[in-house]
């Protein structure tokens, strides 16, 4: 059997899943967003759903909120993760404990984290009770709204909780495989700690940070259950809004849900472009 046929046979099972389910799902979503679906009798495509979506202020508010959630969570997580990795990379007592907690946290599903954040930060949550204990507030409504709030603080807290260990583990591994030789050279040539971090270490770890951030940004932009638990009713995160439109009793809203799904897909296509740029070598080593 020639290599050509071997490769085709080896790739067939995985490619069928990707082409039929993934690309098929995207293609059908695209068709339905144009209200075109011959198998259920819709044969006249139109742009109504996109017109409805792009002329509604709710969509723009949702989009901005979702972008704010994804961008803020990713940025904060990156900075804290680099800090944590710097702290952890030299041997000291707390290191193996934090390392274990980092990995433990990686296996906890986002949904559990979201419920935990809800119980901690809601207006009758643990922190509100502590504030009351110390006489800072009298009733739950005195406590600042940190969940179901317009700035999505609870959602961002949850993502930061989950993503700092995620990015941190990648950055730490990156730093350990680089070793400290480059920085030692910089230091011996007269750079101070800060200079050797900014000009030597940071440029070396940035590709790893960026490829992890792309995964984080795309995930936080498209996740449903976290904003559904911790988010305000209006404006809702884009995936929540799309889900509501999809399950609306009015079937005419479905193409709008698909149009929003396409917006999310388009944004993640941009993310893939960046991911490829930063991880081109991943498959080969």
């Amino acid at each position, binding site marked *: 059997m020639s*290599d*050509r046929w071997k490769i085709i*046979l*080896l*790739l067939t*099972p*995985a*490619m069928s*899943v*990707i082409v039929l*389910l*993934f690309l*098929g*799902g*995207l293609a*059908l*979503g*695209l068709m339905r967003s144009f209200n075109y*679906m011959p198998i259920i009798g819709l044969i006249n495509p139109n742009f109504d759903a996109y017109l409805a979506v792009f002329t509604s202020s709710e969509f723009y508010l949702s989009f901005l909120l979702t972008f704010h959630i994804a961008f803020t969570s990713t940025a904060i997580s990156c900075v804290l993760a680099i800090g944590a990795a710097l702290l952890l990379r*030299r041997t*000291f007592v*707390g290191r193996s*404990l*934090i390392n274990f907690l980092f*990995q433990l946290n990686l*296996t*906890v*599903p*986002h*949904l*559990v*984290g979201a*419920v*935990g954040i809800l119980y901690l930060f809601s207006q009758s949550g*643990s922190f509100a009770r502590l504030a*009351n204990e110390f006489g800072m507030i009298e009733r739950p409504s005195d406590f600042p709204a940190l969940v179901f709030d317009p700035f999505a603080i609870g959602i961002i807290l*949850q993502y930061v*909780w989950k993503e700092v260990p995620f990015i941190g583990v990648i950055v730490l*591994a*990156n730093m350990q495989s680089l070793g*400290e030789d480059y920085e*030692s050279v910089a*230091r011996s040539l007269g750079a101070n700690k800060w200079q050797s971090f900014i000009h030597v270490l940071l440029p070396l770890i940035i590709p790893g940070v960026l*490829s*992890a951030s792309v*995964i984080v940004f*795309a995930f936080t932009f*498209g996740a*449903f*259950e976290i904003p559904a*638990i911790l988010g305000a009713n209006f404006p809702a995160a884009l995936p929540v809004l*799309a889900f509501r439109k999809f399950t609306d009793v009015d079937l005419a809203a479905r193409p709008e849900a*698909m149009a929003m*799904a396409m917006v*999310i*897909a388009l944004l993640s296509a941009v993310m*893939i472009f960046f*991911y490829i740029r930063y991880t081109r070598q991943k*498959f080969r*080593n």
Partner: protein
Amino acid sequence: MSQRPSTGFRTFRAITTVMMVTWLILPLVPLAIWSFSRSWFFPNVLPSAWSLQGWEYALSDRSGVIDALWLTIGISLGATVLSVLAGVPAGRALGMYNFRGKQFIELLILAPAIVPGIAVVLGIHVVFIWLGLANSIFGVILVHLIPTLPYMVLVMSGIFANYDPAFEAQARSLGASPLKTFWYVTVPAIMPGIIVGALFAFLISWSQYILTLLIGGGRVITLPLLLFNFATSGRNDLTGAISVIYIIPGILILILTARHLSGRSGAVGGFGQI
């Protein structure tokens, strides 16, 4: 650079370490406490009455938690087995051969790891209804392959890139059948990759919410669906108990396999999906 850190730095490090440890376990604490509480109203910092009611109800037949647990294990195992069956050959093709269009295939296989499930599943739903796969366990297992397969292939292509096919040729020349060669030569050599890939596949499937909700149509009730329902309906004791049950498999897997995992492997990206 091996001079001893200054006292100021060590104090700073101790404080940040304590803060980090606290923050990492903090959200799990109220969940554990709620699961043992009977009444815990504002402004009590701790429950005013403790009980095992939440746990008793969670473990009883009425709550459906145990059924959901078995169903979730079954679905995740199903998705894992299918991911291994499809991912190992694809990893071999990408790890051992160079061919035209390889970069495009790699891109296609990675894409589902980044595109959020909700963007894909709304379209799939239409066709699954038509095919009779909506509201079925098998349909749910199939959609779980979308996020699980990419990391399986990524892990296996890494393994096969460092794999020497000469061993297979030797076994064949000594008279082993292709099947025997595969079983006694190939499988043992790639086993570490299969284990890591399978664990990621299992955990990624284990954490799926929206794919199960939409394709299962409310008929396929896995643990995360149950957890979400109880969390939004205010049964906090039960929610706490289900949360604890829900995170145990991940912790077990971590303890059993910590030595196989390293941040250096591209597969760690799989944690971003959980």
